[in-house]
């Protein structure tokens, strides 16, 4: 019985550690105003890519370990402590799906365009302009330096405007 308890606790801690690393490491490496080394960036991007899957598996394993622990542990406060730990692993699985960058710089979901002649944009505002298959489009830098990306279609061609 005692051995089982330790096993469940160890699994819980392992899940917590794995989820913390998978959520925390990419945030630590890929953050503004910090120099990114080539190798650490490569590792962080691989971690970020598998982060949603790994943290969900980790949460499921943590919940299973909690259920096992609950059965073999009678002391209430230890059960609650284990539940809090498993709950935190679940929270990390949710956090792994949050794109911090899109919280800071909201993406454009529904772009709208005006005719050049009717636009209220000041003449001395800067724009990035494209001409694709005869269709001309301008993206004001005032908006692009905030949203950074717009998935668009110009001249029947799917393009991504970036700044």
């Amino acid at each position: 019985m005692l051995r089982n308890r330790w096993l469940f606790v160890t699994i819980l801690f392992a899940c917590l550690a794995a989820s913390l690393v998978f959520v925390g490491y990419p945030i630590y490496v890929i953050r503004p105003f910090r120099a990114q080394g080539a190798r650490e960036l490569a590792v962080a991007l691989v971690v970020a890519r598998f982060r949603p899957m790994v943290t969900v598996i980790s949460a499921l394993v943590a919940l299973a370990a909690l259920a096992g622990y609950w059965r073999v542990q009678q002391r209430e406060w230890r059960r609650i402590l284990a539940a809090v730990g498993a709950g935190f692993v679940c929270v990390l699985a949710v956090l792994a799906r949050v794109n911090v960058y899109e919280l800071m710089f909201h993406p454009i979901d529904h772009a709208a365009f005006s005719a050049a002649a009717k636009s209220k944009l000041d003449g001395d505002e800067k724009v990035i302009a494209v001409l694709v298959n005869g269709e001309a489009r301008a993206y004001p830098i005032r908006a692009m330096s905030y949203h950074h990306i717009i998935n668009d279609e110009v001249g029947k061609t799917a393009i991504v405007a970036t700044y």
Partner: protein
Amino acid sequence: MWTREVDGTRLTFHLAGINNQNFIMRDEETGTYWQQINGLAISGPLKGWQLTLVPSDELNFATWRSEQPQGTVLNDISKYATEYARKDWDVRMKREPVVISFAEHGMKARDLLLGIRAFGASRAFPYDEVIKQKLVKDHVGAEPVLLVVGEDNQSVRVFRDRIPGVDTTPDFYRLTPPKPGALLMDSATGSEWNFQGCAVSGKLQGVCLERVQALKDYWFDWRNYNPRTTIWGK
């Protein structure tokens, strides 16, 4: 600016991170990470793929509107418009800190430049100096290029300094003062040329110079991705 179809799949990009102050995009279809400055897939299933460049210009809105009256312009997303940048955003950004720096050729990390990667070479043209000179004749690799400042005194375009169908090297000079719709004249034919690089009068009327893509960038970012870049005037 890139096309977003790779191998028959249309990709939808999201902002996903930052790499030495150049941002990283992620496509939701494959989960691949892409570097914004060069359109290269740096991690994930499509690693190694290169997005196709869509030529673009950085212009004053009035200049663009006069050239493309039929064009359309992206509206503000009103919910976020109060957070948008001011007109002198790129100048204001000069005060922001940097995380990498290349103290070479007397360049400061946030000096603005026009970067050209073409003809097997990379060359940077300090923006303020180009604006001052208004017409720059130089080379990228072995290819002669022409940098032309628009009438708004802020927009810059780059062309190959060769007239299609003409063997001799052209000799362009700037009209002072510029005429409406004409900025340059070539001394061989006396044809007048506009900011789009097309002859609007004279023997060569209708002929257009070939455009060369230039990127307005900060020195630290340009140098990071173009380690062998040379600098005009240095």
